[in-house]
């Protein structure tokens, strides 16, 4: 066997193994959600269930009040969060990319410094809950941590500096184009790739977030703002409660969906991402590599 053939087999073999390992747990999740509940209880989750069933999804359809609501919250939070995030990050980046802006260097430093030092989670929790009082409001899902990172501002700033010629901005200004108009009509349309990349990564972070809800939404008063992820987390917590307390006194057992239904809710939770992913894969890959390549 010659050298290049050996490398081809080795690399394809390892990559196939890695791909299968990446995908298999997700496949198991989907199959588990289509398994008959009684069969699953008796035989455990399996790639080859003895009995298939759609019951879990029928249950989700009947419980659409809760799950559909969570879905709607997830979608709204994701869209609103990424939209606001793009607006405020790109505008700040635009201001910082103007080298003549008085105080620009200080503002730039203030921005970068947030990447080096933070007050820690407890201080952050204190500020958001005791000064801004966002506990048990919809703001809890959008405001803390996720809305803007200095990192995204730098990505936008680098893009503007490299791809928007200064002469174009000068020309627009000379033609009497206002700063706002120039930004929204000329610069942002020219910056679609970076906007898509940053927006997608921020959107993914919002869709997958459960920590903000964990800290700022209580089960009693905040559950109306539960996203799909938080619903999944709540099911986990209820089960853990029963396991550690050995009884179902405080948590109503009927609130805990059966084995296969839990898996079906998880499938519903990842479905949008998995559906969108193949079409936007290019931007995801870009979003990952863009941070690593210093410009």
């Amino acid at each position, binding site marked *: 066997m010659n050298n290049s053939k050996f490398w081809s087999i080795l690399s394809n073999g390892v990559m196939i193994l890695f791909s299968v390992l990446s995908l298999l747990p997700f496949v198991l999740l989907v199959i588990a959600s289509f398994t008959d509940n009684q069969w699953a209880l008796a035989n455990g989750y399996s790639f080859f269930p003895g009995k298939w069933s759609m019951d879990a999804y029928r249950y989700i359809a009947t419980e659409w009040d809760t799950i559909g609501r969570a879905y709607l919250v997830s979608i709204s939070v994701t869209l609103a969060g990424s939209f606001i995030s793009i607006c405020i990050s790109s505008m700040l980046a635009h201001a910082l990319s103007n080298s003549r802006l008085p105080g620009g260097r200080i503002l730039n430093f203030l921005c970068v410094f947030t990447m080096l030092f933070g007050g820690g989670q*407890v201080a952050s929790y204190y500020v958001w809950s005791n000064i801004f009082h966002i506990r048990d409001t919809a703001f809890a899902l959008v405001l803390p941590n996720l809305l803007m990172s200095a990192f995204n501002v730098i990505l936008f700033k680098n893009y503007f500096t490299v791809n928007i010629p200064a002469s174009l901005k000068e020309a627009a200004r000379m033609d009497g184009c206002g700063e706002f108009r120039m930004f929204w009509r000329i610069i942002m349309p020219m910056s679609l790739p970076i906007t898509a990349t940053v927006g997608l990564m921020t959107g993914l972070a919002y869709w*997958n977030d459960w920590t903000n809800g964990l800290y700022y939404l209580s089960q009693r008063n905040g559950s109306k703002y539960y996203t799909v992820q938080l619903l999944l987390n709540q099911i986990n917590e209820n089960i853990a409660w029963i396991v550690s307390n050995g009884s179902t006194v405080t948590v109503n057992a009927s609130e805990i969906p059966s084995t296969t239904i839990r898996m079906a809710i998880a499938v519903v939770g990842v479905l949008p991402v998995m559906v969108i992913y193949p079409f936007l894969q290019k931007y995801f890959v870009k979003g990952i590599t863009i941070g690593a390549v210093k410009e």
Partner: protein
Amino acid sequence: MEETEQERETVPVPESGINLEVIMKRTKIKWGEFIPLYIMALPGLIYLFCNNYMPMFGVLLAFKKLDVRKGILGSDWAGLNNFKFLFQSSTAFTIIRNTVLYNVVFIVLGMVISVTFAILLNEIRSRLVSSVYQSLVLIPFLMSWVVVSYLSYALLANDTGLINNSILKALGMETVNWYMEKKYWPFILFFCNIWKSTGYSMIIYYSSIVGISKEYYEAAAVDGATKWQQIRKITLPLLKPTLITMTILSVGRIFASDFGLFYQIPRNSGALYGVTQTIDVYVYNALMKNGDFGMSSAASVFQAAVGFVLVVTTNAIARRYSKDNAIF
């Protein structure tokens, strides 16, 4: 190509006019021109102030005996008592050890695995096949830790888990109560972390390998270098800047743990705390479950302070070693 086009574009603009204007602005700042820019910067700056700078003053919490009604400034000083209580407890040692040890293993082995995979991915000639692999291995990156905890539960659950039912029973072995047995968890957490993050870091290294000029390899091949020699003498040395940058980033975060991994995957099981509880999980439990502002803020401020020192130090080392590899 692109550069010459850009240069051509700059030519038609009346050059002398701009220069004159620039000179005029040097002497006297026309504030009117910059007001729109300040307005545009304002929302972002306000957010950074609320989300990042206000909590920086919140570190005072760690030195206070917090009375929520009096607020941070009104509460009595506690001096270093919060830290004293924290470090006198046996938990302090456990959570710091867990955080650092897991991170060291994740950094070292994670890097070896993802660089190896990136090099192998680069050996795949067909672009289509390569992009299919890239899409598939990124799937774990797209899932939240909550969903991953459902996946791991499907495998590990005591009664319905796949491993107990389909593997251990089939082999005639004793089933394992995974969520109660500490000894397996370092491996489970390592595997989960590698599973979720390797695709991501592999893509980073791969994009850096793709950037290496093909001419080096062609020249080496002409000189009769084997694949293995090419990897050792060309790929790895040219990958070094990326490796250093990535290491600085992760060493700077060695005191921070992935809350999702350590909270969701062990399902916050108390029986496993000895090997699964990290600083972030401790802070969450102390703050939200026990309402203990003193201990949790001490732990979280300690984490933030050490993190800051580490980021600055690692960066300074990288800077001394090679300026290009430093992050700031």
